[in-house]
């Protein structure tokens, strides 16, 4: 008896908290959905969802908001992994805007995100009639996210009002809503980037290979190393080069910068992150548009 250990490691405590949240959502809402962005946080979410309902199946679908600007490796990974895991995946996007050739170079990142991400998301949520939308955002990621609740109330336009949030005490989440309103749920709220990688290591979770260092074609622009995708336009005087890089965070390729790195596997990445002096979102072009741009997007309905 005395040899029993009654303390959980930080990682297992975080895992337990996330599972608790998943189970609450599955029980208290009628139409939950998980936002699947194909990134590392989504991979962890998927694992946690499986653990939460084992030996049963995950009782809700996953939704990917596609902008047609994701890396080709992400599409391949998404389709293979979701099929393999038996996940019910729904892919939706702002088809009209995609057909019209919407891109960040012509209209700027703010407008592009507004059309391809926020509008697509809000439309998809409306069509699906989802009352709980689970996302992988973490409070540590960005300063307006540090203010998020685990259950984050959204009005019937999907908007966030940071001045008027519901109080959240203990692990008692308030999921009561009127018709049309919804709750965004963040089971990874208390995880850090390092926790995510340590969990990926501990659980042997597969992630998109773009997180691992490899020689890839990039272009240097305004202090960022940008990938060269099929639609990337080079500015006068620019040329591409091959560099040993990896991505710390994955989004649309026009707006996702790479970092020079030789971290070729999860262990390397953890070692790299333990000493890095740069935040995760430094490579996200969209966050820097203006002061508080993430907050503004969140208010409008973005994650």
């Amino acid at each position, binding site marked *: 008896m005395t040899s029993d250990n009654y303390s959980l490691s930080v990682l297992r405590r975080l895992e337990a908290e996330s599972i608790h949240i998943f189970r609450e959502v*599955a029980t208290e809402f009628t139409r939950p959905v998980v936002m699947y962005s194909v990134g590392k946080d989504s991979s962890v979410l998927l694992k946690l969802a499986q653990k939460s309902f084992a030996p*049963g199946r995950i009782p809700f679908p996953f939704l990917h908001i596609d902008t047609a600007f994701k890396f080709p490796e992400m599409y391949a990974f998404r389709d293979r992994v979701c099929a393999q895991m038996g996940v019910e995946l729904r892919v939706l996007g702002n088809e009209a805007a995609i057909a019209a050739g919407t891109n960040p170079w012509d209209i700027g990142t703010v407008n592009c995100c507004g059309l391809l991400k926020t509008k697509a998301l809000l439309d998809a949520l409306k069509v699906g009639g989802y009352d709980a939308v689970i996302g992988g955002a973490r409070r540590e990621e960005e300063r307006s996210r540090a203010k998020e609740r685990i259950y984050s109330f959204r009005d019937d336009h999907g908007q966030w009002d940071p001045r008027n949030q519901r109080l959240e005490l203990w692990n008692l989440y308030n999921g009561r809503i009127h018709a049309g309103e919804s709750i965004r749920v963040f089971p990874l*709220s208390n995880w850090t980037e390092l926790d995510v990688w340590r969990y990926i290591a501990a659980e042997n979770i597969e992630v998109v290979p773009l997180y691992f260092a490899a020689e890839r074609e990039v272009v240097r622009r305004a202090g960022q190393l940008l990938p060269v995708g099929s639609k990337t336009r080079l500015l006068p005087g620019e040329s591409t080069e091959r560099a040993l890089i990896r991505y710390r965070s994955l989004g649309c390729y026009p707006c996702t910068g790479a970092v020079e790195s030789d971290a070729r596997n999860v262990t390397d990445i953890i070692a790299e992150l333990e000493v890095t002096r740069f935040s995760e979102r430094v490579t996200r072009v969209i966050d820097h548009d203006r002061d508080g741009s993430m907050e503004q997007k969140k208010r409008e309905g973005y994650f």
Partner: protein
Amino acid sequence: MVRPTAMLDAAVAREPDLVRITTAGSVDDGKSTLIGRLLHDAGAIYDDQLEALRAKAAAGATAIDLSLITDGLRAEREQGITIDVAYRYFATPRRRFIIADTPGHLQYTRNMATGASTADLAIILVDASQGIQTQSKRHGFIVSLLGVPRIVVAINKMDLVDFDQAVFERIRDEYGAFAARLRFADVSFIPISALTGDNVVHRSTRTPWFDGLPLLPHLEAAYVGGDTNLIDFRFPVQRAVRPDADFRGYAGSVASGVARVGDDVVVLPSGMRTKIARIVTADGDRDYAFPPQAVTLCLADDVDVGRGDMLAHPNNIPRVERTLDAMVVWMNEAALVPGRVYLLKHTTRTVKASCTDVVYRVNPDTLHREDMAQLQLNEIGRLRFTLFEPLFVDEYRRNRATGGFIVLDPGTNATVAAGMVIERKAAAPASSRESRPVGNVFRQPGRVAGAERAQLLGQLPLTVWLTGLPGSGKSTLAHALERRLTDAGRAAFVLDGDNLRHGLTRDLGFTPEGRRENVRRVAEAARLMNDAGLIVIAALISPYREDRLMAGGIVGPERFLEVYVSASVAACEMRDPKGLYARARRGEIAEFTGVNAPYETPEAPALQLESDTASIDACVDQLFAAVALKAFPPTA
């Protein structure tokens, strides 16, 4: 291979643990600066984030403003205030920290309570140049109320008082005397300067007289391990897991205590007993489970268990309560309405409840109890709730997981309050209120127990609440039932809404407020008569659902029988025994239910009588049967 225990222990000891901290301070005590300083000196601010701060610093400024690190919202940066709780993450080689950064404004007691609800430790800031403010005490009180076991009082801005030992000691002694009344496990004092970094991460050379640890080393060393309750096994069921015919389990997180395979357990509220057959996780079965593990329990017998039920060891069960005494922090702009129906969310269970008594309000600055009939935003008081269904609770001091609850407004869905269950004064007779002064009126406890009266009268008290449109037949049925009960040798009495309006409720109108007060008074009268042992038959239009719920709360849900006397408006208008519909139609009566005021049909009445079609006798038969079931004990 057997690993030497020493090695295992070392591995466990090296694993950093997670400590949750909350911060409290009045505006300008330097809380933002301190958190910024901690994060900065602990290396938790990335270079690009520092760069962004430098870019924003006023031209010519040499030092960056550390307080800006924590302001997450644009309005906060623009107005230089903290609006909402934010959570910060940082780690040292020894520990992981989550800091809840809560605003210090007077009106934000609620945010502080939020941050404190999950904290292992609280940092309370005091500005050395200002001394202890009323608010500093308030912060300590809230933190203790929310069960944070240890506090560090960071006496800040020591640079402004020349690191004077006397200033530090004066504040320490004064606050120490106050904190001694608050039952903390540990109270420490540290003289710091958040601005210059003295005693925040590194020991200051300017306080040679201080022999304690600087703040961060203190946080790294603080003992938090023993705060988990490993004694009282409580397992609130989140959901049943039934993927196929072969597997049936109950998913949940262990709230407290330890459970093992083979343990006897009792299911609340059903009281069924069984054993734990398996402890299942996605990573394989376990021999035991402890908090806060999320597991799935399989039981040896095929008992009925669902969300909101709780498993416990049969020799150690929580209190099963229909009346709850709690310290409550009111957190909503709309004040508490005694008697109104709220929702209480506790573990995985949500029940309807109404506050039947504001026992007292606490003045958080003096800790004195004040007599008060309600609670407003950011006020704290002791309340008694009547629950419509039982909750399984422990005293908050003993068990945060099963002692805390939130209060929701069923209309706006807002979280309006947080409650901490406290011990109930022993032997308070069911649904009677404890003796306490209201102005100069003291309650005199009775000497005759309800059970004695029940035995004397051979019946249990009950309130039959007849609701329905004017003319639906409530009064007729009430008096017919009273006759039938009296003939059967039972003590019953009719409270007829119309008759009472000549006396008890003479001063009231027919507005929604007037109707609510009418219902409240009649319900109070019914309760008194129930206390006297009588069966009460109340006949009242009581058109609003919420008012009827309130009546149930006042009378006590266990002795309240809601009966819907159902008849269409057309049928009632045809009968119109008092000619009132006709007058209402002519516009002579304003707010006449059914004509120009609403009637909300009961959602789930205990009994529904179709007075349109059924005869009076048939209706009274049904009523009598329902009363007999509840009020006549089998032996009587």
